[in-house]
């Protein structure tokens, strides 16, 4: 039996199974229903989502985009001067303190207590101007994550783990050589350790070099009454003290300038939550709030695919019946006469149902994603922008998830031969974990585990915006963040499908037809 023959035979059997599929009107109709229900529910939920920024004009401020095209938060206090060509900045950080606002005990009375956010950050930065979203590299001390070197919003490299205090200050140095920026840290200003290098995108010859401070809001998560959780961010700020500030290179005599980058103005014209800087005897004290990080506040494009749950149920029903119908009247015997190699016949069935559902998934997601995004934007929702490749992955991933679920359902149908049991099993394995993880009273950790170990892990393929460990946010399944990376999650789903299919092949081979 040659290899080529095996393929030809599989192709033939697959063609036969395709003929079988398309000649039953109910199944073709089922696929159409799966597409329609996914598109319909998706668009419905998109049109039910409104948001507005308030104010008389109700126009939301433009969200800055980082060099990679992602939406970013770029708000911090920057004390800077121009650096022409190669050079370096060296400072000693002697303290990092801060304030955090707590929930109001008495309504209307602000309660602010001293404290440092884990990701409060202060240090040195080289940035392509003061425009929000401009390329940069920064070397910093943080509240609880030691020294970090970050650049262009999404990149983060860990340095030493120690914090900063009067007794144990930390020296930071950022040098530029051509397009390459290198960060060093030191405890004493003499022995330096390299933290990392960065190549910010398109850095011009003349850049701004200086000191900065920023502090993301304080995150609290509360159990919601109807299931799920409610996350809230409250104002926090950080203050850092620097001395031994030295800039080498082409500074062309320019002086230090202060900029509250990304400051928002209140209707009266005053800056909302202003930062600030003071200079006294070579000691710079910089206070800032906000964050320099990819933005997490906004809708994700995969939200529009929420109708997929209904589409999945329809696909599961069709995939299960595609095989259990053979058992209802004994058609399986005819099928096995035509393809006596049972494993191959089952594979052909799996190939066909996977291909059909993949095509249906591409159609459903391909319509829903652009249309849903359009509706969300028209409703005033801010959609976190993603690249075309990510959009493609969301669409193809949705289709792949449908396909792999269909194969799993087919395998269960083969094993159980009863549609009721197989359909319930497949729904319990794929649809239920996802529903439980996103809308139930389950604790977040339990939800994450559900999405790690069940075939519902494949939903991770839909996540368009990654979770960044260096960014403070509530990365829960409910918020659309899956515990596994997209392809890892898909691999889990595939693993289940392959296992089930192998079991089905084994059972089918052992069993008298």
């Amino acid at each position, binding site marked *: 039996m040659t290899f080529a023959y095996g393929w030809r*035979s599989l192709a*033939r059997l697959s063609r*036969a199974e395709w003929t079988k599929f398309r*000649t039953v009107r109910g199944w073709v109709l089922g696929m159409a229903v799966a597409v329609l229900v996914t598109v319909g529910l998706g668009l419905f939920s998109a049109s039910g989502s409104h948001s507005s920024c308030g104010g008389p004009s109700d126009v939301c401020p433009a969200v800055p985009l980082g060099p990679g095209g992602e939406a970013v938060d770029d708000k911090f206090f920057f004390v800077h001067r121009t650096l022409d060509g190669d050079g370096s900045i060296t400072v000693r950080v002697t303290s990092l303190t801060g304030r955090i606002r707590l929930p109001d005990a008495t309504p209307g009375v602000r309660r602010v207590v001293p404290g440092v956010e884990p990701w409060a950050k202060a240090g040195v930065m080289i940035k392509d101007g003061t425009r929000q979203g401009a390329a940069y590299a920064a070397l910093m001390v943080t509240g609880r994550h030691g020294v970090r070197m970050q650049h262009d919003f999404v990149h983060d490299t860990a340095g030493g783990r120690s914090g900063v205090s009067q007794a144990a200050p930390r020296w930071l140095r950022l040098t530029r050589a051509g397009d390459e920026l290198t960060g060093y840290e030191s405890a004493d200003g003499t022995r330096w350790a390299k933290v990392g290098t960065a190549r910010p995108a398109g850095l011009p010859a003349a850049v701004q070099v200086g000191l900065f401070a920023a502090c993301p809001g304080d995150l609290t998560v509360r159990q919601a009454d109807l299931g799920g959780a409610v996350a809230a961010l409250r104002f926090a700020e950080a203050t850092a003290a620097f001395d031994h500030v030295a800039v080498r290179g082409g500074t062309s005599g320019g002086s230090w300038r202060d900029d509250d980058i990304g400051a928002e103005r209140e209707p009266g014209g005053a800056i909302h939550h202003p930062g600030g800087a003071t200079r006294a005897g070579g000691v710079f004290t910089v206070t800032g709030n906000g964050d320099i990080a990819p933005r997490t506040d906004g809708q994700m494009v995969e939200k529009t695919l929420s109708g997929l749950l209904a589409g999945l149920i329809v696909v599961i029903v069709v995939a299960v019946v595609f095989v259990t119908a053979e058992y209802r*009247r004994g058609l399986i015997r*005819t099928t096995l*006469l035509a393809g*006596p190699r049972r494993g191959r016949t089952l594979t052909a069935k799996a190939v066909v149902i996977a291909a059909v559902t993949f095509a249906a998934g591409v159609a459903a997601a391909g319509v829903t994603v652009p249309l849903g995004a359009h509706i969300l934007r028209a409703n005033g929702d801010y959609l976190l922008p993603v690249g075309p490749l990510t959009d493609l992955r969301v669409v193809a991933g949705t289709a792949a998830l449908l396909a792999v679920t269909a194969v799993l359902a087919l395998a269960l149908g083969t094993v159980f031969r009863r549609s009721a049991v197989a359909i319930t099993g497949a729904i319990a394995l794929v649809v239920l974990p996802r529903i439980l993880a996103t809308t139930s009273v389950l604790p977040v950790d339990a939800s994450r585990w559900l999405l790690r170990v069940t075939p519902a892990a494949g939903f991770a393929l839909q996540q368009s915006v990654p979770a960044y460990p260096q960014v403070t946010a509530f990365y829960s399944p409910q918020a659309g963040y899956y515990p596994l990376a997209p392809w890892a999650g898909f691999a889990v789903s595939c693993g289940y499908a392959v296992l089930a299919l192998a079991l089905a092949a084994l059972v089918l081979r052992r069993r*008298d037809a």
Partner: protein
Amino acid sequence: MRGEATIEVNGLRKRFGPTLALDGMSFTVRPGRVTGFVGPNGAGKSTTMRVVLGLDAADEGTALVGGRPYRSLREPLRHVGALLDAAALQPSRSARGHLLWLAHSQGLGARRVDEVIEQVGLRSAARRKAGGFSLGMRQRLGIAAALLGDPPVLMLDEPVNGLDPEGVIWIRGLLRSLAAQGRAVLVSSHLMGELQGTADHLIVVGRGRVIADTGVTELIAAVSRGRVAVRTPEPERAMRTLARAGATVTVSGSDALAVSRSETFAASGNGPLTVSGGEAFAVSGGEAFAVSGGDLLTVSGLPGERIVALLTADSVPFSEVVAQRATLEEAYLELTRDAVEFHAGTGREAVR
């Protein structure tokens, strides 16, 4: 035609829980003739066919089609066409759709599908849902599926079930013409009558094994045991003459031919009177020898011409010498008497 047109079954054994469905089933089906596969219900016919077709696995033994196990065939429907269960289709698919997927699985095109649809006379119904078909139409669809791959071997399980008389005649002709093309055709039935005039060869099974594997002519001859009916006004002389020549002679009585044939066989072994060669008047069954009324004798062991020659030589008058033939049904009942698994609870029970 591809491959050898044979089915070889060797020592099949299969147990379903407490019942032994196949108990050493062995036979060979040869090309160029219609082989009847007969036996009472539960004798193992369907199980054997399913094992041959790779649907069931035997506990022991082998079943080969054209010298190879079914599951190893590359394009199985081009080697064997089978009709097992005409109801085994999806009700919501059209007849043509059903044949089309089968054709695609063997690398055949739609043209072949239309050919077989034409061949079985389903053209007008081809695009209708198969679920609405009558039993006879489903049977035709099943036969179309069996013919699809133009196979050298055909296996049909009870193909005339549900067909109208016209359909029965059609299928008999079809089977004969398929065999005449050199194919091996195995047709199962639990009614011997269905096979009379169709089958050339018979495999009779009972209780999971082969009872007889023989040509139809031989079988009938064997059951008839070469019997010749002789009508004579002088039965005693005739019996003496014929017995001396080595024949077994039975007095059948004047209206013996009117007696139902099956009854004759059900009673065989303690028949009314048997005269065996060598002994003039051997009486068996303990009954009195009384032939006075009888003028019809059943003679076995001698061909008709020899009987005529012997009687003429001894000047025994006779009016009629007719070679007697048993029917297939009789032969079958004779063979399977012990193999029937379920007797109807009448007759025998009532007599006791």
